[in-house]
C-alpha cells in the first residue's frame, strides 16, 4: 500500500513518474513531496516503496 494525497492505493512497485503519468499530471503543474521531502524534477524516476507517502501539491489562487 502507498498513500497519495492522503488516500491509500495498492503498492505496484512503480516510479513516481509513472504515477504522475497515470494520473495525467504534468510535472510542471505539481510540486512532488515524497515522504515529506520535496523532489526536484530530475528525481521523479524514484521508485515508490511500500508505505511511502506522496503529496502532489499545486498552487491555487488565494489571498
Amino acid at each position: 500500500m502507498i498513500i497519495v494525497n492522503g488516500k491509500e492505493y495498492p503498492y505496484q512497485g512503480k516510479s513516481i513518474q509513472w504515477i504522475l503519468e497515470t494520473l495525467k499530471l504534468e510535472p510542471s503543474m505539481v510540486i512532488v513531496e515524497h515522504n515529506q521531502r520535496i523532489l526536484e524534477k530530475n528525481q521523479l524516476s524514484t521508485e515508490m516503496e511500500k508505505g511511502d507517502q506522496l503529496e502532489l501539491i499545486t498552487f491555487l489562487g488565494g489571498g
Partner: protein
Amino acid sequence: MKKRQYGGILMKNKDQLQLGDHFFNSRLLVGTGKYENHDIMKKSIEASGTEMVTMALRRGDLKNPKENVLNFIPENMTLLPNTSGARNAEEAIRIAKIARAAGCGNFIKIEVISDQKYLLPDNYETIKATKALASEGFHVLPYMSPDLMAAKEMEKAGAKAVMPLGSPIGSNRGIENKGLIKILINEIKVPIIVDAGIGKPSHAAEAMELGAKAVLVNTAIAASKDPIEMARAFDYAVKAGRLAYLSKFGEVKARGDASSPLTGFLRKEQ
C-alpha cells in the same frame, strides 16, 4: 519554475515600502483568489501596479487537475505564498517549507485559522510559526487579529511586517477596528499592512491615511464586476492615501472656521 526576482532595490528619494532588506514602489499587495479566470487575474494584477502577489498552496485535485496559478502571475512579481488551510503553527510551518522548496523565495504570509465562522486568525499559533520560520531565514508576514501584545511578540519573533485584519476575510466591511490598528501603527516598528476586509478603494485610502505602510486586497478586486478597472482604482486609492498621510492633516475642530477672509465684505460697514 523560472527564476523570479524578489523585491526591488533601494532607490534614492523614493517613498518605498521596506520589508526586511527588500524595497517596493507599490504599497498595494494583491491576492489571486476568486477570479473568474486566469486571464482576468493576470490583467488585474498588471493594472493594480502591485509588485507582490499572494497565492495558496493545496493538495492537488487528482481527478480534476487545474493549471498552476504561478504560470499566470507576471514574472516581475515577488511571490507571497500564504499558509491558508493551516489550523496550527505546525501545519503553517510545513506549508511554508514546501512553498520555499518549490521556488517561491523567502517571503511567507502566515495565516493560521481554526475558527471557520469568522475566519479570524489564531494569534497564539501565528506567533509560534513566526518564531520558527523567521529563525530559518523566512521573511515572515503574519496575518493577525489587531492586538498590541500579539503584534509585539510577532515583531520580537522576527516578523518583517505585521498584518492586522480590518474586518473578517472577504467581508468587504472595511476597517472596523480603526482605533486598534492605529495603536499598532504607533507602537510597532515594522510596517503595518492592513490585510482582509478592505472592500472599497476608500477603505484602502483610509488605511493608508491612518499610517498603514501598505494594504493587501483580494476579494474587493476579484469579485467586482470589472476587476481590471477596480484594480486600477485601488492603485490610485493607495497612492492617494499614502500622499495624504505624508502631507499631514490639518487640525480637526468642533466649530466652523472660514476658509475665506472675514473682512472686506461688499456690504455696509456695521
